[in-house]
């Protein structure tokens, strides 16, 4: 094989590869991910309204609506699955990583609102209609699940503040404390997950402040302590 032949072989490979990357596959993946992000934003808007003083009474109806939207998410994720060969999951991982973390958070948050308990990775994967085990297909990477849980922690710290305002005391405290002690079991590297975990202690602290206020019956003064 001459040098010229070798280079045209590589060139052919690269343009085929680029074809895949730039044109067909990636475009497709991006499109589906965009739609997913749209749905995720809708769910977020819906669930965020629980922070409104009136929102607490409407939690059940909001959860029902959110559940419907999660059906759409399942369909859209199903589409995403069919866009690429499953063994290339990590090749394109970056493209849906962000939205998958948000969806994990939303699923966990929805369940928390409903039953005040934490979700396992399996349950989250089930809600999203994806696998837990890599070998079985499109799966929820453990780091993405944990990132989603951490997003929820900061959401709960907000909720703690607002629920005290609404007269519901200290519910999220336990969750955050548990999360904190849970995450302490992990040996994290210096990666985005670590950064996010470092933010958790502030969330926990914030909730504790709110809780302290609420059990001392100082809810009147929580405006001062709980405001950002």
């Amino acid at each position, binding site marked *: *094989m001459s040098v010229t032949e070798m*280079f045209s072989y590589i060139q052919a490979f690269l343009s085929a590869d680029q074809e895949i990357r730039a044109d067909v596959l990636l475009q497709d993946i991006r499109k589906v991910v965009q739609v997913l992000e749209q749905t995720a934003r809708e769910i977020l808007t819906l669930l965020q309204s629980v922070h409104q003083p009136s929102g607490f009474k409407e939690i059940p109806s909001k959860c029902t609506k959110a559940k419907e939207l999660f059906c759409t998410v399942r369909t859209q994720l199903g589409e995403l699955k069919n866009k690429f060969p499953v063994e290339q999951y990590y090749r394109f991982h970056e493209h849906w990583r962000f939205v998958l973390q948000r969806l994990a958070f939303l699923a966990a948050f929805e369940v928390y609102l409903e039953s005040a308990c934490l979700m396992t990775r399996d349950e989250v994967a089930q809600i999203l209609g994806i696998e837990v085990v890599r070998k079985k297909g499109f799966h929820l990477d453990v780091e993405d699940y944990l990132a989603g849980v951490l997003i929820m922690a900061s959401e709960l710290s907000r909720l703690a503040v607002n629920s005290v305002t609404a007269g519901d005391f200290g519910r999220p405290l336990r969750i955050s404390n548990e999360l904190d002690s849970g995450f302490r079991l992990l040996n994290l590297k210096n990666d985005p997950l670590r950064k996010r975990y470092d933010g958790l202690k502030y969330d926990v602290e914030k909730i504790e402040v709110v809780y302290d206020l609420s059990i001392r019956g100082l809810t009147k003064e929580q405006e001062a302590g709980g405001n950002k």
Partner: protein
Amino acid sequence: LLLHLFINLPRPLHSSSHISSMPVFQQELDTKHDKHERLVKLSRDITIESKRTIFLLHRVTSVQVEGVLTEADLKLDGVRLNIRMMLRSSEERTHQFHRAFTPGIQEYVEAVSFHHFIRHRTLISLEEINTKLVFVKEPEDTPEGQQPMGTPQVLTFQVTPTDYLLGVADLTGELMRMCISSVGNGDMDTPFQVSMFLRQIHDGFSYIGNTGPYEVSKKLHTLRQSLSKVEDACYTLKVRGSEIPKHMLADVFSSRTAMMDQDEGMA
């Protein structure tokens, strides 16, 4: 008031399944990080050994070519064993761990193609590199308690076209060194052979241009520098080769290259 407090204590959670699975996550993350670190370590070993092989190959003079080539081949066998070790822990997940071992693989490509050029004066093909990276599967290769199939299986390591290209781009720097030192050894043929070969590779890279990955375009600049050095050397040989006594040629070039090397951080 106290009573009021107790009434308002948080409701107990149904189950804290999340926390009980934390040790599982810990293990999963640790396994992944360990794997990554192992691969990085192996990749470093591959880099070091490949670099040493290249230095060894630079000691080739027309007298003892065969001996050096054989010795270099032995060294490369050692490197291939390391690549085999990498396969053991990262099969089928190359995309997830590619970043960990890509530097080592590029260095290996550089060493192997250098060796090949010295022996055959041609460019080793991607396929030729990959055929040397097929290993017979041994029982201890089977990860995590899977049953091996009845037939003897193979482990194959596939160098990606991009890693191949980047390795070949680095090779050009070595060829430039070889060209200059061969002039010093009074070898009048090698510089011209190298210059022809480099020109072909340069044309190949220009042909790929910016359709390739971003790193390739970066290396193109260095490649041009190496090429012009080699072309200058050949020019000097042609024009003044008849005037300068051979034993002084080395001085002429060493002063030139010293000046040129100053503005360039060759690894």
